[in-house]
Every structure is written in structure tokens, then in C-alpha cells.
């Protein structure tokens, strides 16, 4: 076992042990914190497919996080108020079923990612960052002005949505669900990174010209990666809304997009578990330091600075040493 997989395993063990301990000890708030960390991790694992593997620095991934959140919010809102979502030739009802909500969140985010990707991938570098940021702002202001779904105030959902066979109101059960989805996304990312597609994407990031000269379409590979990436982040958005039983335009805000990037940099870009380590560290800092000091973001900024200057591999890099090639 390499040192990196040891670090990864330790991280996973902690993500199982700590909530279990909190459950036994009757500390539901700790479980909620862990759930928050795991959902952020899932969102960042999604982003990392675009950013770490594909080299696309998207400053607009909050779009997908928000779309996932609003997919949940809108469907559950209609279900709890017994108002059909669409009442025409056919009647579409809202739903409180998590699997259905997830599917909608994934499809909606993927479609949005396809559109945004098609337009944004005509550019690269700082223009790509700016255009994705612009999309984020568009969605943010759209959500604010969308009175039917709460506008600036957002939407409250009274009861957490259902999952067959589980009591999602029990924090530990909802946590288990989120954790399982994170594992699935990590598994998917690992497979993709080693696949033919991953090889193309990896090369498209490093030497775009080379990919074309062997007859491959690097841009299309990036677009596909962007879509998968957006879909995963969208799923995380649906979970985040369910955790808070609340959605608001802040899920679309550029702060959110920035935080997702911060998770990846904190944990280590291009490391499978980088986003997980980053999200966990962030939530821990937010909780511990945030209690002590309102301006804890200053410390976060300083930490980011240190990492960018001295430890490019992030937390995983510090613990596991130099990146090894997946083989």
C-alpha cells in the first residue's frame, strides 16, 4: 500500500468512526457537521474532475450546486403544498422521494454544464475563469428575482425528503446516505482517472496540441468531463438543500464557487482524496475557529497562502508525499 492510499484510508476511517462515535455519544450536531463536510466533499470531488484532471478552473460550479439545490427545493415545495408542478395536458406532481430528486438534480445540472461548457470551452485560462464566473452570477441573480420560488428569501422545506427503507430524519442515517454517495463518486473518479478517457483528459490538460496530433479530440473530452463534473456537484447541491431543509440564492453565489476551489487547493488538486481532505479541514476550521473568532477567514486565507507557496500538493501532499502516477 502506498502512503497516499494509507492516508486516504485513514481519512475514510475517520469519516466512519467520528459520526458513529457521535451517534453513540448522542451528539447529533457533530453528525450534522460531518454531513456538511461530506456533502461539500462530494461537490468538490465533482469539481475536481474538471479542475484537477481536466485543468478547467471553473469559477462557476455554484451553478450546479444551486441547480441541484433548487431541483430539490422546487420538487419538495410542490409536494408539500400539494400543488402540481405542471398542470396541462399531463400533470406533473412534485415529489419527496430522494432518488427521484437526485435524478432530476443530476440531469438538470448535466444539461446546464453541457450548455455552459460548450460556450466556456471556446476560451481558456483567465477567460474561462471569468466566463464561468459570469454564468454563476447570471444564475444567482435569476434565482433572486424568481419570486415564485421565494426570490431572495429562498424556499424552506418542512420535512426532510424520503429514501426507501430509511428514516432520513435520523441524522446518522442521512449521513450514511451522503457518505455512500461520496464513496460512489470517488469510485467513479478513480475509474475515470485510469480509463482511456482519463488518459486523454489528462493529456489534454498538459499538452493540448499533442492530443490533436494523435487524432483525438481533447476539447470534446474536456466537455464531457465538465458535464460529469457538473452532474456530481449538482447531486451534492440536492443533498445540501436536504441537509438544511432550505435553499436560497446563496447556493449560486460566487463565494460558493470559490469555496469549492478552496477545498480542492486545501486538500490537494489532482489527488483523488484532495477534495475530501480539503472539505473536512474547511468544515473543521469553520466550526472550531469560527466559534472563537468571527474573522476566521483571515486564518483560512493565510493557510491557503502557505499551501499555494510551499505545499502545492495540499494536505494530502503533505501527508502522503509526492504524487505517484496511478498505475
Amino acid at each position, binding site marked *: 500500500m502506498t502512503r497516499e492510499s494509507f492516508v486516504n484510508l485513514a481519512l475514510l476511517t475517520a469519516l466512519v468512526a467520528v459520526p458513529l462515535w457521535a451517534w453513540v455519544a448522542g451528539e447529533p450536531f457533530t453528525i450534522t457537521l460531518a454531513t456538511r463536510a461530506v456533502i461539500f466533499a462530494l461537490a468538490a470531488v465533482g469539481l475536481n474532475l474538471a479542475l484537477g484532471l481536466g485543468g478547467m478552473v471553473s469559477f462557476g460550479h455554484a451553478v450546479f450546486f444551486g441547480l441541484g439545490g433548487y431541483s430539490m427545493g422546487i420538487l419538495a415545495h410542490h409536494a408539500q403544498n400539494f400543488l402540481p408542478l405542471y398542470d396541462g395536458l399531463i400533470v406533473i406532481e412534485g415529489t419527496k422521494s430522494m432518488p427521484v430528486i437526485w435524478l432530476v438534480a443530476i440531469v438538470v445540472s448535466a444539461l446546464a454544464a453541457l450548455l455552459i461548457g460548450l460556450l466556456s470551452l471556446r476560451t481558456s485560462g483567465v477567460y474561462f475563469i471569468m466566463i464561468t464566473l459570469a454564468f454563476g452570477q447570471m444564475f444567482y441573480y435569476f434565482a433572486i428575482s424568481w419570486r415564485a420560488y421565494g426570490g431572495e428569501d429562498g424556499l424552506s422545506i418542512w420535512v426532510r425528503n424520503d429514501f426507501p427503507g430509511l428514516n432520513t430524519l435520523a441524522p446518522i442515517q442521512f449521513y450514511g446516505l451522503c457518505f455512500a454517495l461520496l464513496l460512489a463518486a470517488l469510485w467513479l473518479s478513480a*475509474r475515470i482517472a485510469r480509463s482511456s478517457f482519463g488518459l486523454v483528459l489528462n493529456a489534454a490538460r498538459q499538452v493540448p496540441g499533442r492530443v490533436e496530433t494523435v487524432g483525438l479530440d481533447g476539447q470534446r473530452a474536456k466537455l464531457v468531463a465538465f458535464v460529469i463534473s457538473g452532474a456530481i456537484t449538482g447531486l451534492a447541491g440536492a443533498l445540501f438543500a436536504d441537509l438544511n431543509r432550505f435553499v436560497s440564492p446563496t447556493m449560486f453565489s460566487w463565494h460558493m464557487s470559490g469555496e469549492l476551489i478552496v477545498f480542492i487547493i486545501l486538500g490537494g488538486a489532482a489527488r483523488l482524496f484532495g477534495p475530501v481532505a480539503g472539505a473536512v479541514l474547511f468544515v473543521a476550521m469553520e466550526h472550531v475557529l469560527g466559534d472563537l473568532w468571527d474573522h476566521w477567514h483571515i486564518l483560512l486565507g493565510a493557510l491557503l497562502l502557505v499551501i499555494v507557496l510551499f505545499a502545492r500538493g495540499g494536505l494530502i501532499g503533505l501527508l502522503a508525499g509526492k504524487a505517484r502516477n496511478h498505475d
Partner: protein
Amino acid sequence: MTKPVLEVRGLSKRFGALVVSDGIDLSLRAGEIHAVIGPNGAGKTTLIAEICGGLAPDAGSVHLNGRDVTGLPIRARAKMGLARTFQISALAMEDTVLQNALLGALGAAGRPWRFFRPVLSDRSLRVVAEAALDRVGLSHKAAARTAELSHGERRQLEVAVALTLTPTAFVMDEPMAGLGTEGGARMTALLGTLKHEAPILLVEHDMDAVFALADRISVLAGGRVIASGPPDAIRADAAVREAYLGDEA
């Protein structure tokens, strides 16, 4: 005379006031090495970019196996077997040597849309990639990170990636650049055997290699072909001596 594998007709290109390709006619026939020499800035790399599709000429055409490919993108020409090596190595530095070769094999096989199966477990791709590495003498470095290779080994890997495409024609931009005497000799030997698989359009500054390998030589200066012919004729050409060769030949 056999039909040329690669043919360039009246290729012209200017960057603003600078004429970089000036009515270039050139052909590459099966089994030959056609060297293109010329001073720095003569327009050799630009010519290669026009041939391979990275740069659109203002006028003229490029033909591959008798087909006009002038409007086709890089990718399409690569799929038709046009294999380019770069003057400055264009390799995925974070990847292993084998992965770089696999990328070429993947392109040749045309199946990049596989999301789950580990590419390293794809036997048919590995066979192609490993054979190419073997040809250039890099088998022992297959698992090394490309960033750890020496300059010469990177040049070898460039050629290996081109080989994975089972090309119909090679277009090589200074494959000897920066190789020592020994590395240069090894590369010269390799190119001498490669030309029987696919002809090589060889842009090169190393005159020893050029005169050892080339069946024909064209001299480019200021974007124009000022001389073209067998090595002996080029060596004797007064205009060439003045423009480029100096005392070297």
C-alpha cells in the same frame, strides 16, 4: 514514378508583412527521406504546421495519398496517418513514458470514450505502445515519469508516439536537436530503418545526419525553396552554400 504520399503545391503564408511560405512545392514519395533544411526563421516549422493542419495557408494545397486535406483539421490528418514530431517535445510530463505512448495507440485505435476500464489493462493498446517504445529503445523506461527522462530520451519518446500511429508519412521537426554525438547517431540509425515503413519529411539542422539519411534535400530560405535535389547536387549548389551551408558542407 510512383505517386507521392505527401504533396504540397504552391503553399503560401504570410504573417503581416513577413512572408513565411512563398509558393512552396514539395513532395514525399514512398520509402524516402526528404530533408528540408534552411537557416533559423526560414519557415520550416511553419511549413510543418501547414502540412499537419495547425496553421491554414493563405494559398496552395496539401495532399495526402492523393487526397486534398488542406481544409481538414489536425485530428483528421492524424487519423489518415500523418504523424508529426515536435521541435520542442510535446509530451505529458506528469504521465509515465508508457502512458504517453498509449495515448498515441489510443488515437490510432480511435476509442477514447471508455470511462471505466483501466487503459493499462487494454492488451491491444499496450502491445502497440510497448512495441513503439521497444523500437526507439525506451522499453526499460516505460514506467518512468516523462519529466524524469533526459532530453535525448524525450526525443526518442516523441518518435515512439509517432510510431504508435502506424503512419503513412512521418513529418519530423528537428528530431536530432540537442542530442549528443552518440544520441544523434542512434537516432540517425533509427530513422534509416523507419523510412521503409513510412517516408519521412525531415526538418533538420544536423548536416551530418541530413547527408547521411536524405534521399532528397530541399533548401528553404525566406519561405522559398531555393534548391531541391539529391544530396550531392545540393552540396555543390552555390546559392545554397551562400544561403546556408557556409563551410559546413
